[in-house]
């Protein structure tokens, strides 16, 4: 077993940022241990394969017609065959809904280990590579171990109250899903010579019939993916003020989330809820606006790199989980902040 597979997932006409991050960490690891990076594209993503030029040693394009549009049954079948054929030591996925349909089933079919929510991957003995790791350190320092060394993969458990690092033996197959922004897409040099291999072998048809698909606007797609998330809580009072969140998010090219209090009160949609019963986000910058910081909420954002909290109550728990705090009425602070951000970034 050698080499790493990266499952390259796109949103629309562009790969998810996680795809580039995972390809980078895979290059860093294979540079240190030998083996190749294989970028796997399937179905609708095959058309985007030229964007992967130089980022992997090989692009494996799965072209069977059953793979378009995405269906878990067909993807599991196609990926299982590809993974068995290539025998990589690890397959890296970006965390997300599609990964959560495919990865566990692949693990069951292949008898592999599967881990969700990962934030760091490195060669055993090497320094932390993950930008989102709690030991967030010198990106790009992965390396220094011999081929065949174990991989170490880290993830939060118990809502981020602890982190566990697992050791993946060199002869085992690991399937791992990484939260967005876990790695720096520039952590390892690109410029590889990329071979492209197309596989058209037939795959199982989907047993699940798609009746209707309703895709939201861009804002909807962005929450778990966005590098900046602006979340509103009870302090926002009501929907009449949500424009303030959207303005700041727009200025930062980020997405808007809502706390459970607002969702439960019927003021915001569950699809935008950040927290235990909603979405887990892991952005570079997280701005909590009038969010008290109940543990349910913290579980959904604690792996954010930089956290800003704005709350009128100086004893609000959210400040314990923040890097920067502003005590004040969020309805007054937000417009001022948006103005400053616009001035600073224009």
């Amino acid at each position: 077993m050698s080499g790493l597979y990266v499952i390259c997932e796109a949103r629309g006409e562009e790969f998810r940022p996680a795809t580039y991050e995972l390809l980078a960490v895979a290059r860093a690891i294979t540079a240190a241990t030998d083996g190749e990076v294989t970028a796997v594209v399937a179905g609708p993503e095959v058309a985007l394969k030229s964007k992967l030029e130089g980022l992997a040693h090989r692009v494996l394009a799965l072209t069977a017609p059953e793979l378009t549009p995405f269906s878990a049954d067909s993807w599991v079948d196609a990926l299982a065959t590809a993974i068995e054929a290539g025998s990589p030591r690890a397959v890296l996925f970006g965390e997300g809904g599609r990964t959560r349909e495919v990865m566990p089933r692949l693990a069951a079919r292949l008898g592999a280990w599967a881990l969700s929510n990962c934030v760091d991957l490195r060669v055993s003995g090497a320094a932390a590579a993950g930008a989102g790791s709690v030991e967030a350190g010198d990106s790009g320092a992965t390396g220094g171990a011999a081929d065949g060394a174990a991989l170490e993969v880290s993830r939060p458990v118990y809502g981020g109250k602890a982190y566990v690092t697992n050791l993946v033996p060199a002869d085992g197959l690991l399937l791992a899903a990484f939260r967005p922004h876990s790695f720096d897409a520039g952590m390892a040099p690109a410029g590889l010579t990329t071979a492209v291999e197309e596989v058209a072998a037939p795959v199982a048809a989907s047993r699940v019939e798609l009746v209707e698909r309703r895709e939201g606007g861009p804002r909807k797609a962005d929450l778990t993916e966005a590098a900046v998330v602006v979340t509103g809580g009870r302090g926002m009072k009501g929907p009449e003020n949500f424009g303030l969140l959207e303005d700041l998010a727009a200025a930062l090219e980020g997405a808007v989330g809502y706390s459970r209090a607002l969702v439960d009160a019927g003021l915001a949609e569950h699809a935008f809820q950040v927290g235990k019963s909603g979405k887990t986000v892991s952005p570079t910058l997280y701005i909590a606006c009038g969010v008290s910081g109940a543990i349910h909420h913290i579980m959904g954002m604690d792996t954010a790199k930089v956290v800003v909290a704005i709350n009128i109550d100086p004893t609000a728990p959210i400040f314990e989980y923040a890097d920067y705090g502003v005590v004040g009425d969020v309805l007054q602070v937000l417009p001022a902040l948006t103005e400053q951000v616009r001035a600073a970034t224009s």
Partner: protein
Amino acid sequence: MRVVVLVKEVPDLEAAVKVTGDGSGLEVEKRRGLNFFDEIAVEAALKLKESHGAVTTAVGASAGAGVEAMRRAVAMGIETPLLVDDPALDGADSLTVARALAAAIALEPADLVIAGKQATDDEAGLVGPMVAEILGLPCATRAIGLEVEDGFVLVTREIDGGEEVVRLPLPALITAEKGLAEPRVPGMAGTMKAMKVQIERTDLATLGVQAHPVLPVAAYRTVGKRPPVKMIEGEPADAAAELVRLLRQEAKVL
């Protein structure tokens, strides 16, 4: 119609979690209950019991625990609790848990299996779809709507960036997202039943389940707590200006 709900007992969100001195283990306070998303799954099953006369079973897999979650499911209205209780399930790999649950379900095949989207302890969301794969069932994750048709289920589910409606032939497995059903609060009669219920138990050997090896743990560590929060004083405009300066120059995220 037979509906099986997969239930997991998890520590309370508020439970204290401590890493033991040398980082070799975790101590988790023993305040446990039924997983948040499994409660929704239980409620969805109970709705089918009411609308379609479904017979409901809750299946769990655990090492020396799980009774609390089973009782909760019974208090809500599940008829039969079945617990795979085996020391080998302590810290077991997800695949072992999925194999145990699948084998338990196979004892009396179900028309529909409902699992929670994920458990609140590891938030991994692995076991449900694994069980579907092992049993060869079609699977739809993150269901927010469910209708039973003749031989099919029509599932509305959240996907990244939207929702979709899919039709699955029965038997099938779905995982419950928040919104699928609003879990009921058990009443006294259900609670009383749950206090007295005999929970049927089985183990891996009886089920003929082969454990998947456990992935070795290199270390546990507590969250490297963020440095103390830097509070920014002043009127909104001044505080906002200072915050932007810090985000640019110190945190370097703008």
